[in-house]
């Protein structure tokens, strides 16, 4: 179980996150949505340790991980898919998947992982450079997180930059996860696939509830405006 206690993140006096507290039960699929600038990605990065909260506490299965490094959190079972995939000169897709697996990886196993995200095995030897499209890099990014098969998987806008066909596949993948998952998203289909949704507004939790209830409220809000 993941628990955030009174997390705040302040930059130049501006409160990006303001006293956020929440609990995520093991096996839950939680979507976090909200307007741009509401603090969604910052919250995800704070859980992974990429950003350090100004105040507050993070507990994973009851253990305080607030001061742990990114590496230590990864070793404790948190995985993170970046919104903007990172390029590496000289590292191939296979290299990255092997690093993600934390062990020697068979080419056939790597090929299966790629197939899950709709890429053929030829991609394994490709360099993670600008020669790959944004959509391809994004699918590889998702594959690295699936490779880790971590207890807690965080996906920061996984839909960004991928085509419709891949998006449908992505929804299937995320819906089929048995791991605890946090997905930052604006996409209704992804939000529908979640068990719960949190609506963040101006760095605070404005709503939390079952996916269908929150979506109904959001829909109502749209109709009212």
């Amino acid at each position, binding site marked *: 179980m993941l628990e955030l206690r009174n997390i705040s993140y302040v930059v130049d006096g501006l409160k990006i996150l303001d006293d956020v507290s929440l609990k995520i039960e093991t096996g839950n699929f939680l979507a976090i949505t909200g307007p741009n600038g509401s603090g969604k990605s910052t919250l995800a990065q704070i859980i992974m340790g990429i950003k350090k909260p100004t105040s507050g506490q993070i507990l994973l299965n009851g253990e305080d991980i607030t001061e742990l490094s990114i590496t230590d959190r990864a070793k404790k079972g948190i995985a993170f898919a970046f919104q903007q995939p*990172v390029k590496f*000169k000289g590292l191939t897709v296979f290299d990255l998947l092997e690093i993600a697996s934390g062990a020697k990886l068979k080419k056939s196993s790597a090929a299966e992982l790629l197939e899950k995200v709709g890429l053929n095995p030829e991609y394994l030897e490709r360099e993670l450079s600008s020669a790959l499209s944004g959509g391809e890099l994004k699918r590889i990014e998702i594959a690295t997180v699936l490779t880790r098969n971590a207890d807690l998987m965080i996906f920061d806008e996984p839909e960004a930059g991928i085509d419709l066909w891949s998006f449908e596949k992505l929804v299937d993948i995320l819906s089929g996860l048995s791991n605890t998952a946090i997905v930052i998203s604006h996409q209704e289909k992804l939000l529908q696939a979640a068990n719960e949704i949190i609506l963040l507004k101006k760095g605070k939790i404005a709503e939390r509830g079952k996916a269908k209830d929150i979506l109904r409220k959001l829909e109502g809000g749209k109709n009212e405006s």
Partner: protein
Amino acid sequence: MNLSKIEKQIFCTVAGDFKIPDGAYNFRVNGKSVGRSSSDNIDVISKTDVSGLDIFIKPNTKNEAVHIPVAISKTGLKEAVYNDFHIGDNADVTIVAGCGIYNCGELDSIHDGIHRFYVGKNSKIKYIEKHFGFGAGAGGKILNPVTEVFLEEGAVAELYMEQIKGVDSTKRQTRAKLKKDAKLFVNERLFTHGRQTAISEYKIDLAGENSTTDINSRSIAQDISRQTFRSKIIGRKKCRGHSACDAIIMDGASVLALPALDAKCVDAELIHEAAIGKIAGEELTKLMTLGLTYAEAESKIINGFLK
């Protein structure tokens, strides 16, 4: 072949594995040949005027290789070696060279290797060269390779030149002249650390119509090492030339890139790209999210970059 453990280690690093190769070879240790063989198609002969070899590869020789690694384990040894490769027409061969210096003494050990390749019409060569140094002595480990390539019509040369760790000073000079339809591809990898200095210079003369070159140099400069990359591509006819110098700079190192393009014909298409920068923070962060420590992530990025 009677070799010390250190010399075997050097040959292992240069050639990937230590064994007497099939076909033609010459193993050089501390200024002397310690093992040599010619094959039916490749003759390896000592020069009589200077130190070095003349290597004659018969026309139409295919899928053969010649190995000429060099090991220096004696402190203070200084040598200049001239190896000339005469490659007949329509051949396709691989040449494995390189030098390792072990220096545990106070005096500088220096190897200046001058390799000249005369590549016949429609022939193809793949040249693999690895340089490195080790040993805790105060004496320098200095390597100054000169590579000259003369490509006849339709000839192709692929050069894979790598300097891994431990070379205190190097001046690398690569020159080529290409005739009609000839192609030259270069992949250079250079790593400097400590107080090391490295200069890499290229002068490629695209003299023939439809000649092509693609130079790809990647380097890492660590600690307070210094690197200079100078390249000049001359386009005399309708031709295509591209060079890319890509460097990662770390700590207190410095890297200077001085590319030059010299077009002497309106149909010459010449491009140069140069990029120098530190390891991107997001690359380190991404690998750390996959469970690597900062140091492990840095090492993966460096090794990948130089691969």
